[in-house]
């Protein structure tokens, strides 16, 4: 479970995230929606321990990310919006590096790397250096590295940007599979129709403040998620 409790993050005097609270339960696929600059990435980076925050707390399975960062991070995998990787590394070395950081044994990593490489059509491309990849291939390499250590919580920032339709379809399959195993998927997106179909719960953030949060049904009612979002933005 992820518990966001009254989190505030400031950049100078400006509040990028202002007193935000919500909970993500086990088995949720949670969509985090907001316009550009609303504070989505800031909050995501706070959850995964990249950013400090000024007030409140974030609990991962009951542990505070401030107090037990290493233990919390062990449960999570993070896929950033722009696939930030060590470009000079071969993809397989990068994936092995991430697995080493999560203490993944050889057998598990071999099984998972093969599984996801096959799924994302990267089986014969992992020996190339990442700087030779297209944006989508980099995203796939980061996804493989994130999934290779069987995370309990998968956190993604705009995961579908730059991916081909087959890869988007495959990711959706992976996310559904994770939810069946009672894992958590938390991601930010601008693709509202995908979020509407895929996610069980949603939170909408505007200018750093949480404006709506709840189950997909509660939030959208009879309308489409796009309509709800546009009404809130308007």
């Amino acid at each position: 479970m992820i518990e966001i409790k009254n989190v505030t993050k400031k950049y100078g005097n400006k509040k990028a995230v202002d007193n935000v609270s919500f909970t993500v339960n086990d088995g949720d696929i949670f969509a985090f929606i907001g316009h550009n600059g609303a504070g989505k990435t800031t909050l995501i980076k706070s959850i995964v321990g990249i950013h400090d925050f000024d007030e409140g707390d974030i609990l991962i399975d009951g542990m505070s990310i401030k107090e037990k960062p290493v233990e919390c991070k062990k449960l999570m995998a993070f896929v950033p919006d722009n696939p930030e990787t060590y470009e000079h590394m071969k993809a397989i070395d990068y994936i092995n590096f991430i697995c080493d950081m999560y203490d993944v044994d050889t057998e598990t990593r071999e099984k998972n790397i093969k599984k996801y490489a096959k799924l994302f059509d990267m089986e014969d491309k992992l020996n190339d250096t990442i700087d030779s990849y297209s944006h989508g291939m980099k995203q796939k390499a980061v996804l493989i590295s994130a999934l290779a250590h069987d995370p309990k919580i998968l956190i993604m920032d705009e995961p579908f940007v730059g991916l081909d339709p087959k890869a988007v379809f495959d990711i959706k399959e992976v996310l559904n599979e994770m939810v069946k195993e009672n894992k958590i998927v938390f991601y930010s997106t601008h693709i509202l129709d995908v979020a509407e179909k895929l996610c069980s719960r949603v939170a909408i953030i505007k200018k750093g403040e949480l404006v709506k949060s709840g189950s997909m049904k509660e939030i959208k009612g009879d309308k489409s998620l796009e309509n709800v979002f546009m009404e809130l933005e308007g």
Partner: protein
Amino acid sequence: MKKLISLIRACMTSDMNLFKIRTKKDKKSNGSSLAIVLAFFFMFAIWSNANILFEKMAPMHLQPVVLALFVFGTSVMVLIEGIYKTGPLIFNCKDDQLLLSLPIKRRTVLFVRIFKFYVFELLFNALFIIPIVIAYNRWGENVGWTFYLTSLVMLFILPIIPIILSCIIGALTSSLSSRFKFKNAAQIITSMIMLLGVLYLSMNLDRIFDYVARHASSINDLITKIYYPAGLYSTLATNFNATSLIIFVLVNIVIYIISIYILSLFYFKINSRLKNVSTSTHVSIDKLKIKSNTKNRSLIKKELNTFFKTPVFIINAGFGMVLFLVMAIALCLKADDFLVALRIVFDKEVILKNLSMIVFMLIAFTAFMTSITNSVISLEGKNINILKSLPVKTKTILMSKIYSSLLLTTPVILLGDIILFVKFNINIVEALLLVVLSILLPLASHFIGIIVNLIYPKLDAENSAEVVKQSTSSFLSVMIGMMLLIGTFAINMGMIGKIDPKILLLMVTGVFIVIDTILYIILVSYGVKKFNKLSV
């Protein structure tokens, strides 16, 4: 013209924060203030040294020769600096795609690149020329407005020839390396050869001077024959001639324009070849090595990978180590000449008893002048987010950077040690202490580098040269290294002959154990906090 000015403005803003309007003081401006203070300190040191030289030359009325010598020396340094920078500043720039897609002539892009390079070298040049002008004002004869006018013109014109030479050497090395599959390795090797060549020429200037002296009637003629602008400066300082100055300026501008024109014929071909990333033949996943490692080992492997895949980083750090080996070998071959030269300061007996201290000085020189870690944080760039999201203690991440740097420096220093131990027949106790110091001294240098880099990180750099050669962090850590080196030298020079070398080495070992311990504590407390606050 409007487009050109906008382009220059955009490029300079991204690289140097020039023309940037700031509404309030921020951390970066604090770093800049410190860099300015250190620049003044550096200029003061140059001014002091110039005064000493002027004082010696004044009785012979040869003050203008000092001007020529400094201009010559500065130009050599601008050239060496330039060779390091051409790769990332002229070729392989991150904004290539953006600039080349704009409706502007490709030659304009190259002009802007070289202009940016010129501004960097102009600032470097000013660090030397301004103190010399101030010192000459005191020692020169009949110093008038024409001298200041000449100096001002020279300040702006002198960097042109060295940067054009650097660009040509850079183009040659890049052109050569772009033909190979392993471009980075080829670039490192060719740059090293070029640097060692320039260094060899600089070290053998006395012989070159001797040769030219036989063909020159005076010292002024001699310098003019070696490097015309240097000689012209000293001549114009005493006998101002507006025509000569105007011709000199025009010649340099013409050289600049012609060079840009000629370079532009090859530049884009070389650049696109450098950008071709070689992809290996597709290998099936079943044949790939999937193996687990410990966190420490994996982090060190990653650091070494970054080091060996960043040419400017490896040239910068590797040059000091190669130099140490070259010095060790040169000392073996010319030990007698060196020992004779040392007799100016010490008695023969003292020298023979303290040979281990000579080795120690060399280790200190290499350790403090080879700062690998001063850019290891900045080089992470946006990848710092990967490290920060991993379930690894910050201390482990930072220490992995120290271990990997030690792995790079220690074997080379130990190899040099062995050569010198054998040559100078160093006894076992002193040899053991020197081996320990070969680890302790670089360790201190690495700790200082990473701490300074954590205080002044540059995670948004356009290229690796910007962090390795031009950042506040690299400047500060080199200055701190120089101060430590001067301090270590001064203390040891004072002690040599008065204390048994074994005792002296033991004392130095003790001092550096304490220094390393203090620096370690700073890194794992203050450094960890600084790392955790970094964000992109």
